[in-house]
């Protein structure tokens, strides 16, 4: 039995992206929920399973049920960091396929920018890392970038080109938080934070929320918008702390991508549009390699000189990504919403013509959890 094409996203929405003054994380979440239910043409009372993960609320699934006035059959609160939501879609598809639930809501929201101005997290430094004061999570990614540069000759310029591409996409997205021009030189001249990563290698700190509604494929066409089918999904967990990552140049995306593409019956060359969790510029290079869009060690050359920018050989992070569009702390849900928009043809100036197959990929912890979803239009079933 395969989950391929058994469930679909029938509603998707964002809320509070950028700055949402005077709103709590749960209020932003519920605004996104309202938007997604409206988009799906689904009544709140029809929701019988919910999934969320919020950074500071350990019982956020319960808070969400309370806030929505629901008594769900299933409340999913599995926490793997920013990848959680791409795991929630897999559990949702299982519940739907087994007819344990009929309508599943997956959502997230954060007010970290207006509430604190920095990453809000309940996590402290790990016992065996705390004596050395790495910046959390930045220094972990800096160590991965340093190792990639040492081992494969990846250059400072290539890292910068990831941020430049994200900005170029953001300039086509009226909802993106930062749309000013950005050059490779700007990135390389930005403030050094934890070598080799500079400020412009780092994702934004914004508010924002997102939500999606999933139903069984057989019911998916009863909704106003074209369904976006979940064709495949897979996970990979390699560690929690960066000092325990077996090889800093190989992430769990190698496993999650192979699982997801295997289930979907597709290969990297089939994918029309790619949404990757770009917490830092090095992430995109690592994930493009591990997901099979290029060989290990060649990610730098792949992204160089506009390779993933508008007009490049692969459209990556068409909303502007966490680097330039929105990053409220756990970005995974935004990869799904942007993939849905691309597959529905709703992406405006940044629309990839004829997009039928999308890959959405979430990262959690410090390259620790990797979860990949393959999504497609009806023509891909």
């Amino acid at each position: 039995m395969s989950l391929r094409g058994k469930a679909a996203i029938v509603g998707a929405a964002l809320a509070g992206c950028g700055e949402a003054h005077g709103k709590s994380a749960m209020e932003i979440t519920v605004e996104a929920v309202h938007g997604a239910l409206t988009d799906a043409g689904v009544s709140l009372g029809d929701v019988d399973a919910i999934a969320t993960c919020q950074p500071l609320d350990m019982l956020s699934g319960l808070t969400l049920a309370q806030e929505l006035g629901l008594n769900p059959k299933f409340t999913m609160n599995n926490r793997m960091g920013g990848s959680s939501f791409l795991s929630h879609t897999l559990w949702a598809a299982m519940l739907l396929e087994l007819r344990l639930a009929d309508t599943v809501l997956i959502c997230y929201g954060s007010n970290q920018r207006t509430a604190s101005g920095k990453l809000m997290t309940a996590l402290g430094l790990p016992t065996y890392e705390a004596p050395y004061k790495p910046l959390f999570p930045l220094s972990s990614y800096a160590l991965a970038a340093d190792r990639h540069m040492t081992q494969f000759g990846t250059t400072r310029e290539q890292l910068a080109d990831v941020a430049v591409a994200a900005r170029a996409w953001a300039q086509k997205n009226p909802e993106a938080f930062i749309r000013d021009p950005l050059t490779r030189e700007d990135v390389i001249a930005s403030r050094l934070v934890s070598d080799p990563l500079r400020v412009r290698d780092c994702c934004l700190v914004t508010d924002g929320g997102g939500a999606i509604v999933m139903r069984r494929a057989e019911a998916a066409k009863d909704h106003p918008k074209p369904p976006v089918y979940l064709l495949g999904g897979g996970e990979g967990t390699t560690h929690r702390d960066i000092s325990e990552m077996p090889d800093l140049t190989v992430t769990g995306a190698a496993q999650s991508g192979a699982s997801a593409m295997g289930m979907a019956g597709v290969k990297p060359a089939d994918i029309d549009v790619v949404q990757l969790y770009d917490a830092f510029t090095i992430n995109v290079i690592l994930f493009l390699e591990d997901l099979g869009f290029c060989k290990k060690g060649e990610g730098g050359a792949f992204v160089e000189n506009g390779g993933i920018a508008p007009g490049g050989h692969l459209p990556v992070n068409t909303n502007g990504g966490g680097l330039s569009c929105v990053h409220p702390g756990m970005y995974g849900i935004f990869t799904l919403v942007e993939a849905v928009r691309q597959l529905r043809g709703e992406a405006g100036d940044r629309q990839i013509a004829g997009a039928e197959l999308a890959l959405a990929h979430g990262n959690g912890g410090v390259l620790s959890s990797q979860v990949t979803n393959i999504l497609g239009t009806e023509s891909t079933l």
Partner: protein
Amino acid sequence: MTGMQKDQGPDAVFAAKLAEGVFEIQKCNGCGAHVFHPRVICPACGSADLGWVAPTGRGTIYARTIVRRKPERGGDYNVVLVDLEEGVRMMARVDGIAHDEIAAGLQVSASIAEGANGEPAVVFRPERGAS
């Protein structure tokens, strides 16, 4: 001494040894693998029969970053991952060398000094004979 003692878990044992100026890591009596961080069971074979051994202290830098901090707040400092000769990796810092001279491949040796909060911590210095 196994990982499943009645009194203390392996984290506490490691910390107590470090406080006495002793840096030891675990070795699995089942499969022979060295283990760090300290664990209850061996991640290679699942055995709970883990003993403590003194590593040679020699290692090689695997990756490094320099955290940039204003001078009035203490200035820059380095954070590294070190591969010990026994085949385990740990986070640490390297003392006794300019931050920008630390790079992957540098040979280092362990000693015990103060961590960020004054606690005993394993740190490394360049192996002068090798560099």
